[in-house]
């Protein structure tokens, strides 16, 4: 068998990036497994946390999918002004910091929020957002748009000719076309959201808590931060890892549609539409559910800006630095891995999806606390962990582009005798500006809003903006917290927008 004689890109940076990811994921897991006090077993409280984690994830994923189906159907078959803007905005929650969304949800559903004011005015009993249903509400808020976009892709993947054929046969579109599509798409969507809810920490931290609403990750945080019980924290981290691997293994077996959602602008011509009111009502309700909390963040945030203590601004500066460093690291690793290619890259590209920030954080804590005060390492470790957790998304964008360049120009580059570094500098970098900018923007925004591993490490002097905001909420300084939420919201979206725009500038490909 003749061999390809061309190996044009440098390989060692990819190996270095892979090593870093493996140390942060598998290495920290080993530390956790070694330190866990297995003989102690799981207490009733631990079992309660496991049950709560799984139940809330099941309910959140189920509700998200159930609500998404009629909305996706409405969006697939109705044409109206602002439709594409609405679909684009539904991609926004992916970049939205969890604590910001929680502030918005509190403003709508919390004590003294819009809903409770309305109920009180009607003389009805008020509701509380804390506990199980609060966690589920926040998870549905985050994942409903994702579910809608994914299921909408399924709908739009049905060829227009089939609808025409069904119409000419006067056949029921629902049973003939839509039900088979849903049966193949919905299980994958459900599992992805289940996995996301399984590892979501910040929602449980802010809206859960107490013996009846504690997730495994929250229990890890409490064991480490409040009890300094390393054995229990490690044991719980192993449990959490087991849960994630189980769910990821199931997701792995399902082929997934692209979540970045290109080509959602299409509207298929239909002949079976009778009741437009129901569709538009669904769309309006979901839009209200998704955008009222965001509007409230801005509405309450503006007066809160005046109340921000100086240390919140310092935290904001820290967040910007962490976000920028983590974005740079993330795209460098993604580029190095993409240039290297091969099985190692494929594996390293998915491992972080099954990793949880808290498990990695616990492992990192165990590795360093004997040698140095963990608080001193809070920011570097947050940068490393955030870059690693965002890596799969950046690698997906950049990897495809690099593969395409290899396919189209690899031979030309080889025959011209471009050196490895000249190949990267002259050909690859100019041609991947767009995915590079997109990947950097994603990593920057995710890191800006992250409230995960930082909570394990940071003291007052290292807090980032999400952590400062969480502490303001904990101190019931809600006006100031709302101001901080607005700052965080603007910073997150600005970080994404700036990177993404830089990637788009004068790119003539």
């Amino acid at each position: 068998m003749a061999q390809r004689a061309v190996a044009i890109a440098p390989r060692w940076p990819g190996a270095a990036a892979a090593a870093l990811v493996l140390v942060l994921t598998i290495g920290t897991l080993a530390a956790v497994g070694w330190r866990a006090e297995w003989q102690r077993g799981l207490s009733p409280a631990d079992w309660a946390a496991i049950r709560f984690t799984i139940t809330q994830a099941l309910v959140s994923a189920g509700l998200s999918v159930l609500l998404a189906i009629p909305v996706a159907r409405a969006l697939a078959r109705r044409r109206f002004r602002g439709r594409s803007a609405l679909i684009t905005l539904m991609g926004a929650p992916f970049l939205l910091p969890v604590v910001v969304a929680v502030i918005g949800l509190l403003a709508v559903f919390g004590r003294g929020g819009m809903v409770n004011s309305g109920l009180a005015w009607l003389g009805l009993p008020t509701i509380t957002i804390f506990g199980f249903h609060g966690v589920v509400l926040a998870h549905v808020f985050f994942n409903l748009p994702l579910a809608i976009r994914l299921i909408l892709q399924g709908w739009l993947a049905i060829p227009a000719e089939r609808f025409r054929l069904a119409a000419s046969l006067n056949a029921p579109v629902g049973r003939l076309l839509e039900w088979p599509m849903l049966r193949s798409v919905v299980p994958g969507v459900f599992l992805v959201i289940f996995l996301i809810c399984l590892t979501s920490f910040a929602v449980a931290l802010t809206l859960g808590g107490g013996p009846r609403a504690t997730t495994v990750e929250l229990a890890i945080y409490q064991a480490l931060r409040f009890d300094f019980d390393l054995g229990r924290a490690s044991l719980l981290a192993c449990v959490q890892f087991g849960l994630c691997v189980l769910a990821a293994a199931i997701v792995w077996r399902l082929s997934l549609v692209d979540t970045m959602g290109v080509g959602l602008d299409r509207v298929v011509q239909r002949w079976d539409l009778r009741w437009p009111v129901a569709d538009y009502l669904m769309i309006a309700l979901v839009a209200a559910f998704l955008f009222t909390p965001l509007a409230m963040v801005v509405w309450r945030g503006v007066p809160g800006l005046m109340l921000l203590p100086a240390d919140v601004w310092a935290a904001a500066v820290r967040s910007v630095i962490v976000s920028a460093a983590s974005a740079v690291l993330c795209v460098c690793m993604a580029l190095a891995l993409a240039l290297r290619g091969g099985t190692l890259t494929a594996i390293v590209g998915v491992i972080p999806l099954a990793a949880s920030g808290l498990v990695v954080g616990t492992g990192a804590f165990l590795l360093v606390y004997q040698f140095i005060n963990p608080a001193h390492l809070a920011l570097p470790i947050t940068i490393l962990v955030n870059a690693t957790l965002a890596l799969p998304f950046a690698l997906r964008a950049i990897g495809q582009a690099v593969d395409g360049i290899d396919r189209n120009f690899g031979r030309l580059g080889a025959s011209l005798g471009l050196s490895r570094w000249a190949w990267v500098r002259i050909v690859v970098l100019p041609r991947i500006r767009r995915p590079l900018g997109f990947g950097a923007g994603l990593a920057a925004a995710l890191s800006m809003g992250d409230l995960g591993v930082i909570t394990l490490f940071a003291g007052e002097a290292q807090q980032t903006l999400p952590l400062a905001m969480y502490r303001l909420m904990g101190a019931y300084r809600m006006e100031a917290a709302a101001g901080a939420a607005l700052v965080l919201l603007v910073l997150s979206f600005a970080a994404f927008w700036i990177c993404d725009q830089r990637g788009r500038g004068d790119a003539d490909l």
Partner: protein
Amino acid sequence: MLICDNLVIEQDDFRLTADIAFGAGMIMALIGPSGAGKSTLLAALAGFLSPDAGRVLWQGRDLAPLPPGQRPVSAIFQDNNLFPHLTISQNIGLALRPSLRLSRHERAAVGQVLESVGLAGLADRKPAALSGGQQSRAALGRVLLADRPVVLLDEPFAALGPGLKDEMLDLVKTKLGAAGRTILMVTHDPADAKRIADQAVFVGDGRVTPPVATQTFFDNPSPALIAYLG
């Protein structure tokens, strides 16, 4: 002389053997059905494939240890011969400096080549702003500027209209042929071979026949060639 010495290339269940010599300074056409191994042979000569057996020799020197970029060979492919994000003069300059850091003399040489292939004044355009024929001219210009005696043309003008294609073939003959390059050109069209090739080679059934003068090649066709031409 460019010699394929008992060359064997295997890919999946496809096997190509070649044991022939191409004369230096000649233009040779490789003719044969698609899938017969014409492009595979060029890929082996350029160094993109390492042969399973045999050697490739240029002027007595074994090319096996040389990677594609260090062989005395330049190539023009069917497409993607220019980097779309680089200007025409940058694309041509790559022939002299793969780092793109050109001296003043080298820049002047690029300017001369641009003029020679009829692209004067288009130096700072990007490929997308050029017509198909102009893009082919730019690729030819780069090969002209590269100091490499062997030129491999893998149907680079297949997408051009007949008039434009003849214009390009003539440019190959008057510029590259006149510069003494050894040119191997893959083509489907006998007219291409008759127009510029000194010799022709038939590639079929996994074998490469020895070169024959183009006139003789078509006047006394082999049975395989008759079957191919139909």
